[in-house]
């Protein structure tokens, strides 16, 4: 690479004899090389090497799996992948130069519009890293909108999510307090929430379906309780095909995970943190927003707008530090939604809810099992209570080729015998059969 004709001509133009001269400004005292690395490989070697390592992974083709808890293995249509492979999208960056980037801007505007329809919210930004960080940003945003210092979150929240938002709250000095859940329904305990609402409260986060897969029923009551405090709702995006959208119960900020729409689970990332809010709050929103406008000829055009909220303009006064986001996964989601449409989304949501119901019922029939554990309504995920420790049952089932779900003890404390089970459109009847049979074998 470095002894070609070009290099010679460039060195001559620079009047130096070797590329090494260009590094004369790096003092000897800090010189270091890369001898710790290996020599390069050919493309074929890299492919073989990586494939051989990845062969050690088990994927859903090998192993029936009922994992969910924030990452959902739905089918990604080939057409979505075809869109993702369009290199004009793939190899571009933040559309700073709108004239040259109308395609991306147009697509992201559609993403905003579709997500706004889905959530019934007025404004949607162009992505936060993932659900957990979107929640972190949502709390920071809520804090900018009020004078409070304390934010209410549910008792039932996974360790990971909690840790992320604790980190997001640390700098701003926001204190997190928990409200309880009802042990029978699995829903929020409104008394507990109510008792904690004081002047110092910024607002509350309500998750529906929550960690247990239970859909919150008292959303209007919560809105009432919160009054002018900020209501942050976290939802399962697909559930909105059949479940009341947050705009309907007047949530102020909404977050969800867009991965479910057209993106693979990817071992947890890239995912797609979605953040929506009321339009009156848009100036306090983190992340990028695309607006429609016109060009010099008066034709429709798009551009990034409200950039004065952002770090590259506002620096330490920015609404967030986010720069590189998850735009490509947002494009995937836009294309997925355009291919699916509201009607088919509803059908898909119905079929998933029904599938989940059927599976819960079958598990409930096994002796010593209760499914779903809670009375509340569910969407795609539910907790099953097992007669024994869920982790060890899961390990035994894995040996028989089934990953039965997430032991709840991996997510929160104090629920040893519980397993969180999730279905997707890829879950077949065969999968369900092997789950039920294998579980039966293992608990006998």
């Amino acid at each position, binding site marked *: 690479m*470095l002894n070609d004709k*070009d290099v010679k001509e*460039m060195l001559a133009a620079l009047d130096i004899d070797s*590329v090494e001269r260009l590094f004369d*400004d790096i003092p000897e005292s*800090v010189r270091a090389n*890369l*001898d*710790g690395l*290996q*020599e390069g490989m050919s*493309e074929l070697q*890299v492919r073989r090497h990586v*494939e051989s*390592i*990845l*062969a050690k992974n088990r*994927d*859903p083709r090998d192993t029936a799996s009922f994992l969910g808890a924030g990452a959902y*293995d739905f089918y990604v249509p080939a057409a979505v992948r075809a869109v993702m492979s369009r290199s*004009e999208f*793939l190899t*571009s*960056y933040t559309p700073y*130069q709108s004239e040259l*980037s*109308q*395609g991306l801007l147009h697509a992201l505007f559609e993403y*905003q*519009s*579709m997500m706004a*329809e889905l959530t019934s919210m007025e*404004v949607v930004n162009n992505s936060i*890293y993932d659900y957990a960080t979107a929640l972190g940003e949502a709390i920071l945003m809520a804090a900018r909108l009020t004078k409070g210092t304390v934010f209410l979150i549910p008792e039932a929240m996974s360790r990971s999510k909690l*840790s992320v938002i604790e980190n997001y709250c640390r700098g701003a000095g926001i204190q997190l307090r928990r409200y309880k859940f009802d042990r029978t329904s699995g829903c929020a305990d409104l008394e507990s929430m109510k008792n904690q609402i004081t002047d110092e409260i910024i607002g509350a986060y309500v998750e529906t379906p929550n960690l247990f897969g239970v859909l919150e029923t008292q959303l209007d009551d919560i809105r009432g309780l919160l009054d002018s405090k900020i209501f942050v709702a976290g939802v399962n995006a697909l559930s909105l*095909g059949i*479940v009341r959208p947050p705009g309907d119960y007047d949530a102020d900020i909404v977050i969800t995970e867009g991965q479910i729409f057209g993106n*693979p*689970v990817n*071992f*947890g*990332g*890239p995912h797609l943190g979605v953040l929506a809010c009321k339009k009156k709050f848009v100036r306090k929103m983190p992340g990028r927003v695309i*607006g429609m406008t016109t060009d010099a000829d008066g034709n429709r055009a798009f551009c990034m*707008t*409200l950039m004065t909220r952002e770090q*590259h303009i506002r*620096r*330490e006064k920015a609404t967030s*530090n986010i*720069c*590189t986001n998850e*735009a490509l996964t947002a494009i995937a989601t836009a*294309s997925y939604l355009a*291919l699916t*449409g*509201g*009607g088919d989304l509803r059908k898909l949501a119905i079929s998933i809810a029904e599938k989940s119901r059927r599976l819960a019922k079958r598990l409930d029939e096994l002796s010593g099992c209760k499914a779903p554990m809670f009375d509340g309504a569910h969407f795609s995920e539910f907790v099953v209570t097992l007669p024994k420790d869920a982790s060890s049952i899961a390990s035994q089932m*894995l040996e028989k080729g089934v*990953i039965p779900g997430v032991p709840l003890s991996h997510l929160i404390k104090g629920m040893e015998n519980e397993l969180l089970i999730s279905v997707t459109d890829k879950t077949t009847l065969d999968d369900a059969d092997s789950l039920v049979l294998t579980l039966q074998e293992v608990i006998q």
Partner: protein
Amino acid sequence: MSFRQARHEEPLTFEMAYCEVGESMPVPDGLLPANLVRKDVPCIPKLSEREMVRHFTALSQMNYGVDSGFYPLGSCTMKYGPKINEELASLPKAADIHPLQPEETVQGTLQILYELQNMLATITGMDAVSLQPAAGAQGEFTGLLIARAFHEKNGEERTEVVLPDTSHGTNPASAVMAGFNVVTIPSKDGRVDLDALSAAVSEKTAAFMLTNPNTLGIFESQVLEIAKIMHDAGALLYYDGANVNAIMGKTTPGKMEFDIVHLNLHKTFSTPHGGGGPGSGPVCVKERFAGFLPVPVVAKKGEGYSLNYDIPDSIGKVHGFYGNWGVMLRAYAYILMNGRDGLTEAAERAVLNSNYLKKLVERFLVVPYSGLRKHEFVASGSSLKEKGVRTMDVAKRLIDYGFHPPTVYFPLLIEEALMIEPTETEVKYTLDKFAEALASIVKESPEILHNAPQNASVKRVNETEAAKKLILTYRDYLEDIE
């Protein structure tokens, strides 16, 4: 014959098909409590596969990426990413792995992450690595949370982060998110002013954030003096690794005595930028900070690998799962393919291209500060001001010549800045053409420049109107035209 971007009359999907809102599509009885049921079907029009693909294909043609042409967006390292990376990242054994699978079923992924941690430690000269941050800015945030936890553990209350005026906008923004006050110091001759630094540093200083080479493309040769100032004051030296592309194989942040480093895998290690993301911003630290890294870190465990959550002083988590695995895998493949010599050559060629292009550009534009550059340089369009031309006009006009414009108006200390980073994947032919275009643009009439671009899919976009009207969704649009 000259460049012309495609133009397609693409409506919004909402204008192409209708919503099934009105149509009855009841949720089966008993599936949900009545008060939970969504009444309307979400108004998202359904396109046939043909329509969807054609729509996004048309849109893609109205977008410009590295695969479309030269994209010298300074600070962003818009280098070409080998296509093999895309194929590897979409293998089912890479993409369809669930983050909560039992460890024994993801040994392949864990091995790659483990090896990548080690590779990055070598490349940065640091001791321990967290791959969790999802982008550079999150790496900064994470790094500063580590600094904070470190000082707190030592019983020190350090509330300030110092940074130079050349620093990237994410640096101050991240510092604030991590709870620090920001102290900005002015540069001198394009480098850190050691006196200003000494003056700014105190027992309140938690860290100094620096990228080296800095955003002017200038190597901070006094970096060891800077380190000494910081360390003597009990403060840390934070390295913004966005510019590591310029120094691989020549020096490391570790050798330069930085304490905490983030990398931008999507820049130096070739992941395509995806129209804004995803990225990945690993944090690499010296041994004494290893105990503060986010959990989990990938560790060796017998013959295999595991996710180690047992990190006593860990700051906890900054991402719902483990960060952007898809990006890490690409970086891993890229490092494997290049190896030590390939990475070193990448840095060399990047720096050669940058200095060569600077030489060409200097003929007709001022490039403040003399001397060598590393991966990028910043020219000034100030000489054009007298004829009423702004740097933004030059940028827009470059579009007509088929080039993506450089970063403009940053860093702020250069008047009418044009920040140009050619990267190593470009050849001389392209650099010559770009310089030629810039040379003729400088001579063009203000009319031409003010009316640029003419060859993009649209004419100059009215950003002021956008901010005033705030049409952010199709619904906003419908209201606006009413």
